[in-house]
């Protein structure tokens, strides 16, 4: 190995320790019994699962976990379907007003979510959507980013394939569903992962639209629980691990696809 290469490895490894350390610390602390949490050692001397038992039985972490899964899954399915339908239509059809519609959707990308929060809340409280799943879901059911992202990929699908489908007697929707969608599978996978992660991690809107504990998502529940837990670091880290490790495990399994998806969406988007 060349010397420059060794130096690179040393610097990268030092950085990698900083990247990984909080996760290791969080997980190990979540297995410590209360008296050990301020001990110097990283490893728990008497590892226990009691902290996890406590957050599931004495608090609503199970419910919050489920709420987060539900919101993230429904949003992801909706985004995949509608965004790709719009992306497909804008890429493969000619009709009056097409450019205006595209620009209109694209322009919404420039508006920061933070600006929409108050009008959304005004609407949600006016119609009684606060503390409901619909209230949690409605702002995210479609994204301009996904429209743009799928449109880019549909542009590379040759028209001949679609015409062949038409000759075979497929309806226009059948064409989209059976011919076009399967062709952009890798784009859809990237969009699905990004959407799921974004919703799993979302905080500001769920914090605002839910006031009853039973409707919290995991990040909201974790934040408000931790705010009251004080020095019970064992419970806080157990809750944080519950939020972190499912996504981290999914990431480790699919890391190549996820990173490549993010890279292509970042460069295109």
């Amino acid at each position: 190995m060349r010397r420059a290469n060794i130096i690179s490895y040393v610097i990268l490894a030092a950085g990698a320790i900083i990247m990984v350390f909080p996760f290791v610390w969080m997980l190990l602390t979540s297995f410590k019994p209360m008296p050990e949490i301020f001990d110097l050692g990283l490893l728990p001397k008497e590892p226990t699962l009691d902290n996890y038992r406590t957050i599931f039985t004495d608090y609503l972490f199970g419910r919050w976990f489920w709420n987060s899964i539900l919101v993230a899954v429904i949003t992801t399915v909706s985004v995949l379907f509608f965004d790709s339908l719009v992306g497909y239509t804008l890429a493969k059809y000619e009709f009056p007003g097409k450019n205006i519609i595209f620009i209109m959707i694209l322009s919404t990308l420039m508006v920061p979510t933070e600006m929409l929060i108050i009008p959304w809340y005004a609407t949600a409280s006016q119609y009684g959507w606060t503390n409901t799943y619909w209230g949690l879901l409605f702002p995210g059911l479609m994204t301009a980013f996904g429209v743009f992202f799928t449109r880019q990929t549909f542009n590379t699908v040759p028209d001949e394939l679609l015409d062949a489908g038409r000759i075979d007697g497929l309806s226009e929707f059948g064409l989209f569903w059976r011919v076009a969608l399967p062709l952009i599978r890798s784009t859809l996978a990237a969009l699905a992962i990004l959407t799921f992660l974004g919703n799993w991690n979302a905080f500001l809107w769920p914090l605002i639209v839910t006031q009853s504990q039973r409707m919290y998502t995991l990040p909201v529940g974790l934040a408000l629980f931790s705010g009251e837990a004080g020095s019970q670091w064992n419970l806080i880290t157990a809750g944080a691990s519950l939020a972190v490790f499912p996504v981290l495990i999914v990431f480790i399994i699919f890391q190549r696809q996820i990173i490549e998806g993010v890279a292509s969406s970042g460069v295109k988007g």
Partner: protein
Amino acid sequence: MKLKLSTRRAIWAYAFLLVPLLFFLLVRIYPTLQSFQLSLSTWHVDPLQREFVGLDYYERMLNDGRLHQAFRNTLYYALLGVPALIIIGLTVAMLLHGLKNPFGRGLFRAIYFAPYVTPAVAVSWAWSLMLSPQLGIVNEILFSLGLPTQPFLNSPDTALATVTGVVVWQYLGFQVILFLVGLEGIPRQYYEAAAIDGANGWSRFRFITLPLLRPVLVLSIIIATASNSTGFLQLFTQVLNLNFSDPGGPLGSTLTIVLYMYQVAFNRFEFGYAAAITVVLFLIIMVITIFQWTFLNKRVDY
């Protein structure tokens, strides 16, 4: 009646677009306009009972010391955080790009990216406990290495920089990935030709890497500054969760525009004023993004 083929297809297109268009109009475009409208009147759940106050809320911003502090802090966050993200991100990407072993490259790439996929709330809480001045493990490590311990989030002098550090830690991996894509797009022949000409490492970086990386660099600066919920101008989640018992503290030293807007709206229930703040935030983001776009994209001949 038999419709022309092109007409039939256009009808299908409109049918496909109907529901999404309603969504974008009602959930994205109308609320954008509505926030301007809300910023001009007092708040009431029933829209009919809102009272028009004109530009009162905008005038009030001129004398709101806490808001000014939030603006100042947000500016500091961006001035500190964006260059840190870019410089460290580019450094890591170049080191990774230079690694010969594909396994090592893949492993490090995944490790640096991991924090980006995890919930900001959870990692912020972990950091806030680790950075606790008396009991936290970071100070224990500093102490055992013979280094001075730090107050981190507990002192107005160090809190903002500490929050920035945590945010950089979390979003660094995204920048590394962007830069890796950029670096992989630079043809090797350029470096080989430069090596024959006897160019040293720095001038290769200065005259080949940097100019060819420009489009990616512009993109990553814009994303780091103002992308939705991860941009430094929109910091909220980390700031709130790193210092949950005193959001924006100590002494308002970590307060951001979005956090202040949140407090105005949901602690004080002054939605009209909060809406006015978001309108100003929107304008600031717009101006800065346009400025970055035109200024950084300006063609420069090398």
